[in-house]
């Protein structure tokens, strides 16, 4: 649940990029950081391991303007995708308002996507949250790989695997080139903020 400060008329919204390891979550944030540099007042924080994998999380805060007289502070987080870091993933999910699930389109990663989504569902349950009630956007990342002849999953297959029940908005994307990265972010912000609107009235 977002934190509302009635004195400063400020709302802090936490959006978490979730998904399997090496799926492109950090790349999403890096792209956003570059593209919106002017609106982002502080440096992107990242806690990485040797070998450049996300160990703890990445964190990118920015201001989104005003809604109903409240200034909205969006805070984007990523989680470490590797299976063994579940304790950290759960920590980052604490107090989440919206989720972007970054799935890897590579043929080889089909199983990993499904397992990661299941893991998200379980971790949300540990905070008494039902995945069906949390604003969520699906991003099918790495669509650009098909141009290099690497086999990728058809969107229909990914929809069936991951979005059959959720029926969340989805975007084919390429975090490396930035394709649909902004669209994904705008969508999750819109969904999350509209779920807050009622509370601000």
């Amino acid at each position, binding site marked *: 649940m977002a934190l509302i400060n009635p004195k400063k008329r400020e709302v802090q919204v936490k959006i978490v990029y979730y998904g399997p390891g090496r799926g492109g979550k950090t790349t999403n944030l890096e792209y956003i950081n570059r593209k919106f540099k002017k609106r982002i007042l502080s440096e992107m924080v990242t806690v990485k391991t040797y070998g450049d994998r996300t160990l703890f999380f990445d964190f990118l805060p920015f201001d989104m303007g005003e809604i109903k007289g409240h200034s909205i*502070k969006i805070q984007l987080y990523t989680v470490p995708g590797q299976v063994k870091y579940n304790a950290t993933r759960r920590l980052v999910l604490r107090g989440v308002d919206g989720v972007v699930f970054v799935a890897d389109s590579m043929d080889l990663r089909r199983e990993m996507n499904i397992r990661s989504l299941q893991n998200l569902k379980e971790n949300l349950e540990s905070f008494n949250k039902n995945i069906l009630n949390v604003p969520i956007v699906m991003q099918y990342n790495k669509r650009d790989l098909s141009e290099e002849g690497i086999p990728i999953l058809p969107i229909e297959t990914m929809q069936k695997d991951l979005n059959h029940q959720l029926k969340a908005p989805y975007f084919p994307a390429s975090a490396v080139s930035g394709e649909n990265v902004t669209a994904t972010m705008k969508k999750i912000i819109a969904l999350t903020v509209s779920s807050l609107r009622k509370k601000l009235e």
Partner: protein
Amino acid sequence: MDFTIDFTKEQIEAIENVLEEELIELGVQSVILMDLAGNVIVNLDSGDTSHDVFSLAALAAGNYGAVSAMANIIGEQEFSLLFHKGEEESIHFSKVVDDLLLLTIFNKNVSLGFLRLKVAEAVKRIQLLV
């Protein structure tokens, strides 16, 4: 468990008063009351710092979580107090209630012992307000 406490304007003002009286007047650089999701609830400073409090809070929440997991491994429920010492500036963390942390950033002019006393005092007073 996942809850964020809703604060009223009056509560926030009362908390600000406590932090001002107990800690800012003591000479600390900056004080942040935050929840474990990494949200900043109240932030006061001495006027001559410009720390990025939102990033600090995000990292502090993660840090606190990691240290709590360490506590569990050695059979402790949690470590309710943490302290990171720097050359010039140091950070002191103290748990207020289940979901709230108080972060104090101070320099060499403030003695750790006195700070701990004042933090304990502030925590007690805030507990009555939330």
